[in-house]
């Protein structure tokens, strides 16, 4: 039963993470390959603040603000670039942030990590047990889903998709493409931060090794497998992939095997991305010709 609840919590956290990337990659067409950076920035911010007895409500807000702020700072110099270049910059950013977590030992305790992150107390209610935490994450996930749905179904969301489709045409219609992209990126970073914070308080121990390219690849895979640019794609993708990833962890294989199993599993992720892109880039759920939903 515990395993089941754990699985649910992980899946839901990754749903939030994937929804945030879906906004950027799926809807706005931004090539963000460093999304883990914002996941990590928020996780560390919230952890550090909570360890200093800052109430969760406040540490959460500050953690989100940090994620959003860094999203903003990163996007200003780089969002005008063409896709490939932006991809490399975000990729590099992800690596640099990991380096910061690793090197700034006075601040982040470096490779030793931050243990003992307290369980959140939100509005006087303590979310300590597994099922309580599940409730917490579920609540935030639902909130995220609703907020993003409002954004994506609005005229604002429409412009984002137009930018994805043809930014020159969008600009010619009077849309300030750069501005819209920044907003999309900041919102995406914010929600990535939410996922990161929830994750940090769940595992209660974070270290720089938790925020690597693997997490970016995983969330990217979730988004494209589920179907980028769809509302439920990230949900489906998260179910499939996190289930796969976490169940391997619980198979209780001999210790010597893990040395081979981890890279093998990650090779599968890499290979899956390649195969998907070649044979079914739309993913599982296709974007529907928006039938009768147009304008609603």
């Amino acid at each position: 039963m515990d395993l089941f609840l754990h699985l649910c919590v992980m899946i839901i956290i990754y749903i939030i993470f994937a929804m945030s990337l879906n906004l950027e990659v799926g809807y706005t067409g931004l090539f963000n390959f460093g999304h883990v950076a914002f996941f990590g920035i928020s996780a560390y911010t919230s952890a550090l603040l909570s360890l200093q007895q800052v109430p969760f409500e406040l540490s959460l807000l500050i953690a989100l603000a940090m994620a959003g702020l860094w999203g903003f700072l990163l996007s200003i110099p780089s969002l005008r670039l063409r896709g490939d270049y932006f991809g490399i910059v975000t990729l590099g950013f992800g690596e640099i942030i990991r380096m910061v977590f690793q090197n700034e030992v006075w601040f982040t305790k470096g490779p030793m990590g931050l243990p003992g992150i307290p369980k959140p107390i939100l509005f006087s209610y303590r979310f300590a047990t597994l099922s309580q935490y599940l409730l917490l994450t579920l609540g935030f996930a639902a909130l995220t889903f609703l907020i993003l749905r409002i954004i994506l179904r609005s005229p604002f969301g429409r412009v984002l998709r137009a930018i994805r489709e043809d930014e020159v045409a969008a600009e010619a219609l009077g849309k300030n493409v750069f501005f819209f992209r920044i907003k999309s990126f900041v919102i995406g970073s914010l929600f990535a931060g939410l996922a990161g914070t929830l994750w940090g308080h769940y595992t209660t121990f974070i270290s720089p090794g938790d925020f690597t390219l693997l997490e970016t690849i995983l969330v990217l895979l979730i988004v494209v497998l589920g179907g980028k640019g769809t509302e439920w794609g990230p949900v489906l993708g998260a179910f499939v992939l996190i289930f796969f990833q976490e169940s391997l962890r619980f198979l209780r294989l001999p210790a010597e095997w893990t040395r081979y199993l981890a890279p093998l599993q990650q090779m599968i992720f890499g290979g899956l991305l390649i195969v998907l892109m070649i044979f079914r880039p739309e993913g599982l759920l296709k974007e529907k010709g928006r039938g009768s939903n147009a304008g609603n």
Partner: protein
Amino acid sequence: MDFLFQSILNGILAGCIYALFAMGLTLIYGVLNFVNFAHGELIMWGAYFLYFLMGKPFGFPLPIALIPALLLTILLGIGMDRFVFKPLRTANRLTLLIAALGLSFLLRNGAQFLWGAELRTYGFEIKRGLRILGISITLNQVAIILTSIVCIVFVYLLFHRTRLGKSMRAVSDNLELARVMGIDSKHAIQFAWVIASVLAGVGGILLALDTNLQPGMGLINLVKAFAATLLGGVGNIWGALLGGIVIGLAENLGVLVISPGYKDAIAFGIMVLMLLIRPSALLGRQE
């Protein structure tokens, strides 16, 4: 003062290696018009192929193992194109880049699967260097510089004196026009992969000689290679050379003032700086 000169030498050394990385990356960019996100892994596997051939059960000495290692790297480069990039020639950019990223991840973990995540070296003992004009330079380092120069001269000759080189330049300039004029773009593309793989392989081997090998070395060197190409003007192979040297110097001079833990971040910083100063070649309306 000696310290400064030593850093400059180290910078030029590293710069030569980065130049090789950047030249390979920009070559593929020029011919196929995309940044190969798996270029770092080509570098990394080049280094590991040599390691593989020098270790059990082969045990070849370096000069003997070098050519086969490079051949294997070429095979990998051509394989990349044949199995991943060629099917996606007409796909949209995001799809292509995601596939390249996936490929990079696959290759990186492949190396980890085979050789583990630990740092490895080729096993040459660190010999005392010669002292010239107050700075120390080892035989290894001389070899690195010489090899780089050889490669660069080689590339120059290839590009400007052979027919295939001319085809590559034509294809790089304008693929449609090149095709229409009957220039064999397919061979030009393959040839570009061969050259890029050799440059990556040699660069990776030199880097591993100078430092060490580990499966994750691809990513950060991709970023450095890209920063160098950006500096020199994307698609410009001689600019990439220059950019590499600049990055190498910046890194080695930079650690005189900032923490060595961020040495690898200097290239990224330069990249961001360039973007802020904004040469218009990078921005502007794209197609």
